[in-house]
């Protein structure tokens, strides 16, 4: 068993888990934050993308024990004081989702991309979202949403 302490969306948690517990299962089953999804179980689809210590990572391929002392942000932590994060707003405005299953992970990946590269070219957007698969949209509106969010990033988030 592993004793872990971590911060999730600004809130401190302390848990004891089996060593083999995946971070995504801790987040979903134990903490009840079910916005983070499990899509493929093979580290390809990116539906489980969260931020750990400021970097976008796939929570299905990290042990909860590895996240001891980590600072985690999930999709539930993106909106502030009832206001959508600019990336979330852009996804709404640009109709960048249909079924919505990939969307939380996609938003977390986009936020990570724009943090590293505030004004990405089309190629950089395609490359920056290679870790996230969408079966519904064909990605066109997702790319539009990234560009809209990038256009606003200079306004401060």
């Amino acid at each position, binding site marked *: 068993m592993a004793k872990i302490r971590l911060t999730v969306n600004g809130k401190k948690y302390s848990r004891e888990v*089996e060593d*083999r517990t995946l971070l995504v299962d801790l987040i979903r089953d134990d903490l009840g934050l079910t916005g983070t999804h499990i899509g493929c179980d093979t580290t390809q689809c990116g539906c489980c993308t969260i931020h750990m210590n400021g970097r*976008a990572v796939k929570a299905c*391929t990290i042990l909860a024990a590895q996240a001891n002392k980590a600072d985690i942000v999930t999709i539930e932590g993106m909106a502030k004081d009832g206001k959508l994060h600019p990336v979330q707003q852009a996804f709404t405005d640009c109709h960048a989702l249909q079924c919505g299953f990939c969307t939380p992970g996609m938003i977390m990946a986009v936020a990570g991309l724009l943090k590293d590269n505030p004004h990405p070219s089309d190629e950089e957007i395609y490359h920056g979202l290679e*870790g996230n698969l969408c079966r519904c949209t064909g990605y066109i509106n997702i790319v539009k949403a990234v560009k809209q969010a990038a256009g606003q990033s200079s306004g401060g988030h």
Partner: protein
Amino acid sequence: MFALNYVRAKSLKHAAELMAQNPEAKLLSGGMTLLPTLKQRLARPSHLVDIGGLNALRAIKYSSGKLTIGAAVRHYEVATSPVVREAIPALASLAHQVGDPQVRNMGTIGGSLANNDPAADYPAAALALDATIVTNRRRIKAKDYFQGMFSTALEEGEIIVRISFPAPLKAAYEKFRHPASGYAMTGSFVAITKRGVRVGVTGAAPGVFRWTKAERALKKNLLPDTLLKIKVPADGMNEDIHATREYRANLVNVMTRRAVAKL
């Protein structure tokens, strides 16, 4: 995955002790290959010894013509480090093409080299640049280190500490990405060193190899078209559902020509 014991190593010495005490233990660095393997129950280690956070494995330095990268440095760090980008920009470019962004935020160069996937990217660079893999026991030259599919010179419990790359005069890496997995169906790293042209090829054969026939031709004339008539024999190449051996042999030629064009 099967139940196991997770231990965060407090130091390199602690990690070595844990590995010695537990013959069924495995080292955990970024986990981007190991954890998917465990999730599929393809391995059943007794312990995971997490060395990903050890500062001793996380330095990037350039000195006297050698770039040294700690084993637990993440791919995105190799890709964005000003030191790497100045010393060996082709290596930064290679790291930027590994996996996907989330995988690059966790996966490490030491983990990749310890695993030696036949379609991994770093082995092409390590072999072309004549890198040295420095472990907690010895220094291993790249040509002795890679021993075939998923096979390396590492002994039981041996831990990669850092990798030393002599900086080339120029280098370039071109990779044919598998459209779904992103792995190298073929990746060719071409380096111009003081000792001449070196071509390291990954993804095409069971293990990384130097394409010496191409090296000799490029030594005479360093142009992509020099290789137009120079082929690798198909029968040494991998064949699977993704590509025939003839297709891979052709990719070796094309990716190497593209890398030369990029120099």
